[in-house]
């Protein structure tokens, strides 16, 4: 521990000292790091760029990121994972804020508590050492739309969309006002759908959802270059079905608030501080399911309060950032089971025993321009992670499995990375290594009989799990030719103390029909490889073609293949752009996947090929007013297919035709 503090202090001092010798050099973005990836979600008010499906759900936007795979349990609240590693191994933040879901069955990833108009973009940082926090696979940050103080007027937006497959209806509106001192924005979005249909018109029951989202921001700029912003998001989903799971959700509600201060200095350094609070309530409900072994209510609560401060500075050949974050989370989930006859007593237990998480983190990163062509990126972070079991009942429940259970558990989590980017003419090379550690999640550490409907086991948490550690090695090469570009990237993760459930035959299952009980344990090693390839060709000013591929492998000690490994998957896109038109055709597919883990409930997958297309047209008048329409078709041939990331091999959507309209003024 002391060595790490010393190491980090030396590093910070060295960076500070180096600022004494400035190197004049303005051009930074000529060597973008391949470790970072982003997708635009909401077109900004002045942007000319339109997306194929701008009003698609957040989940659909995230899926277009190379590093992200979305685990589907229904037509709502897909769960993002990074680089083929399970979601507990990545950190997802909303504008730098941490949120924790309130559902033991992962039905509410935090991406399900925001809507498309709330976000400007989503950014991924691959690798264990990122500002988001202690993680293995990387971090995904969802950036909120920003206020535009300089518009000095009213702006509005109205949008509507309809999709045929699940009769999904989307409508919403937003209003933005600004003057040099104050700016405010309010948005409202409603999205709802009935059951969707897989290929061959097979209706998937219990896949409906209804979601309302209201977001408001108020900003003040009392002094130049100093901005205050108060933000609120209220998101409420009711009557949401999860066809791959034995239960649905009657209510998922979140209130996300924050207060931010940002100051830009003459040197272009930026200081940003934020204080935030979010509160989530999630109620699982099986009353719509006709045939259940036992009826149950499962509410969950998650409250998070936190703050961060970050300093970004650029001096000479260094581009330096320093982040401090801290947060507190309380998570509790209950299960009440109802007997079949009126005289039966209700059965109550705590599935998450009221766990507090206290987290503090310091992180610094420096991008050093060594020469005009070579850049060195360094980062290091140190976090303190403590869990405390707040509920007495929860503590005594978990003591059954761990008689010497410590009520408090503290961990120190370290991370660091270094990479080199080289720009040599038309070639770009990057290579690097990273190291990180993570603490067990609330379920992995303290879960109490959490039923996994994929492998049909009850899972028990293990608070004594050691920190999971990983080394990541990555390398990428790209080339820009005459009208074409190509890129090849490889990432390997070497994990130690990989957390996974192992069968304990001495415990009897609690869930009726479960195959047994697994307790989380640490496997000595696991590794995960991901290869990405990309090729693009611009035929002329209007036509271009693009193809990308991904291949994944994963293995661990004793269990063989890791679960949910992506087979060779590829996508080919041809697009035509004109002034007001955009036409796009795409084909995507995957090969068969025999590398599954049968013990974890996976069956081998068949490959598939899908085709789709879209047409976009926009009209502009009087500079600020714009009408955009999109018409598209997904899975044009109504293929029935399922992917490695579909829970219990839930089939994906069949043919879907969509139309979207956006009016901006």
């Amino acid at each position, binding site marked *: 521990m002391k060595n790490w503090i010393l190491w980090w202090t030396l590093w910070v001092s060295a960076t500070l000292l180096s600022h004494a010798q400035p190197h004049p050099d303005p051009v930074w973005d000529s060597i973008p790091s391949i470790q970072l990836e982003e997708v635009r979600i909401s077109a900004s008010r002045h942007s000319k760029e339109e997306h194929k499906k701008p009003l698609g759900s957040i989940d659909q936007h995230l899926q277009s990121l190379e590093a992200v795979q979305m685990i589907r349990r229904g037509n709502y609240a897909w769960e993002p994972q990074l680089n083929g590693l399970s979601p507990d191994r990545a950190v997802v933040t909303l504008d730098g804020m941490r949120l924790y879901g309130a559902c033991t069955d992962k039905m509410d990833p935090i991406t399900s508590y925001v809507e498309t108009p709330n976000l400007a973009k989503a950014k991924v940082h691959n690798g264990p050492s990122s500002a988001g926090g202690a993680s293995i696979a990387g971090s995904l940050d969802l950036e909120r739309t920003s206020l535009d103080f300089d518009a000095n007027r009213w702006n509005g937006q109205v949008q509507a969309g309809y999709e045929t497959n699940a009769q999904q209806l989307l409508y919403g509106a937003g209003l933005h006002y600004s003057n040099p001192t104050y700016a405010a924005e309010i948005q409202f979005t409603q999205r709802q759908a009935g059951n969707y249909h897989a290929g061959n018109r097979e209706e998937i029951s219990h896949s409906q959802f209804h979601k309302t989202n209201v977001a408001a921001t108020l900003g003040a700029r009392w002094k130049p270059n100093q901005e205050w912003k108060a933000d609120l998001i209220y998101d409420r989903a009711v009557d949401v079905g999860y066809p791959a799971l034995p239960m649905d959700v009657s209510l998922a509600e979140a209130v996300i608030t924050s207060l931010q201060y940002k100051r830009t200095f003459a040197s272009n350094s930026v200081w940003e501080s934020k*204080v935030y609070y979010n509160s989530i309530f999630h109620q699982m409900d099986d009353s719509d399911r006709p045939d259940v072994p036992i009826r149950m209510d499962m509410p969950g609560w998650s409250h998070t309060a936190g703050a961060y401060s970050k300093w970004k500075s650029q001096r000479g050949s260094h581009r330096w950032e320093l982040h401090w974050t801290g947060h507190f989370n309380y998570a509790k989930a209950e299960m009440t089971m109802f*007997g079949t006859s009126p005289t039966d007593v209700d*059965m*109550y237990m705590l599935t998450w025993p*009221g766990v507090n998480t*206290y987290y503090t983190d310091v992180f610094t990163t420096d991008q050093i321009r060594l020469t005009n062509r070579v850049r060195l990126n360094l980062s290091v972070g140190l976090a303190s992670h*403590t869990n405390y079991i707040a509920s007495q009942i929860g503590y005594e429940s978990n*003591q059954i*499995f761990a008689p010497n259970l410590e009520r408090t558990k503290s961990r120190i989590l370290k991370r660091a990375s270094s990479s080199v980017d080289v720009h040599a003419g038309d070639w770009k090379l990057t290579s690097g290594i990273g190291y990180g550690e993570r603490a067990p999640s609330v379920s992995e550490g303290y879960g109490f009989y959490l039923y996994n409907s994929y492998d049909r086991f009850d899972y028990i948490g293990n608070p004594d799990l050691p920190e999971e550690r990983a080394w990541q090695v990555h390398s990428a090469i790209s080339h820009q030719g005459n009208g074409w570009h190509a890129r090849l990237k490889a990432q390997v993760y070497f994990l130690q103390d990989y957390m996974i459930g192992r069968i304990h035959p001495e415990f*009897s299952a609690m869930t009726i029909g479960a195959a047994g009980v697994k307790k989380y344990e640490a496997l000595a090693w696991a590794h995960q490889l991901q290869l990405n390839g990309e090729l693009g060709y611009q035929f002329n000013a209007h036509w271009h073609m693009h193809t990308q591929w991904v291949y994944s492998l994963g293995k661990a000690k004793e269990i063989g293949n890791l679960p949910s490994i992506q087979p060779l998957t590829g996508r080919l896109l041809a697009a035509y752009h004109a002034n007001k038109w955009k036409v796009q055709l795409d084909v995507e597919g995957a090969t068969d996947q025999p590398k599954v883990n049968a013990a974890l409930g996976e069956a081998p997958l068949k490959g598939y090929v899908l085709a789709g297309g879209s047409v976009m047209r926009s009209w502009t008048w009087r500079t600020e007013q714009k009408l955009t329409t999109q018409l598209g078709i997904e899975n044009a041939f109504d293929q029935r297919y399922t992917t490695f990331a579909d829970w219990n091999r839930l089939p994906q959507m069949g043919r879907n035709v969509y139309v979207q309209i956006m009016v901006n003024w």
Partner: protein
Amino acid sequence: MFLVFPQFDGRCGTLGAQFFFSMNTINTYTTFLFTAILASILFLTGCSSDDSTNNALPTPHFTLVTTLSNAEHTLPIYTESGTLKTGYNAMFFQIKTTEGELLQPTEITWKPTMQMQHMAHGCPASEITLANSSSAYHQGYLVFQMASNDSEFWSLTITYTVNGTNYTASGTIVVEQSPTRTVNTFIGSDNTRYVAAMAQPTAPRIGTNVMETVLYRMESMHQFTPVADYRFLVDPRMPSMGNHSSPSNTPLTSQTPGWYAGQLNLTMTGYWKINLQLLNAADEPLYGNAITAETPSSSLYFEVSW
């Protein structure tokens, strides 16, 4: 003689936590202020030490059941609930003169009798000891195999000596049927009649519970002797939930003659059937069944429901 009193339910150290973290309404930034800076916190979890010892009698927890009397003395009898039920009953009584003076006589014995239509029988009864010398509470326990009804009743006779003179006090006592099964009377495979009753847990909790059981051999209609060195195997099940069990229960082993204790883990509230198997000192099965798919419950069991 070792007796266990009802335990306090320690909620001390967590009161602060419950205030802090009981959130069903939207909270403010005050919680953030306390916590955003912290790297680690250690909460006090120490509950007050166990108050239940053989000498402390928290009188508010004891309610009068009935009073026996004779010409010179009254004997108020107390239990925690104020009633007597089938199964194990921890009882306390005082012996007072008509002026209210507390006596500590020697050689106190008691004899419970059930008067049935055609015969009478007794029930397992412990020795009587002095629980608290300052307030002169005498304690013991009785295990009633059945409840009183219209035609059959229980009576209790207490005999004691004060200054060389013997006294007796008698009276009828009402024994109610316990809503859960807490007593078993059976004939073991050794052709001996036994009575087994559950003494703890009286207030079950989610988590690890101390389970205590008394075991007596019926020598005759009125004589029951405590049995030592036997063993109970424990398998708690929830019949309304696929008959699932709980992990890490331990067998009940002999503590003092007639008294057995072990660990009972209950993972949730609700109705549990505590299935038991009785083994003698040579580990031979005497009564009760192991639970299998074909045998969902044992002939020897107690019930817990909360």
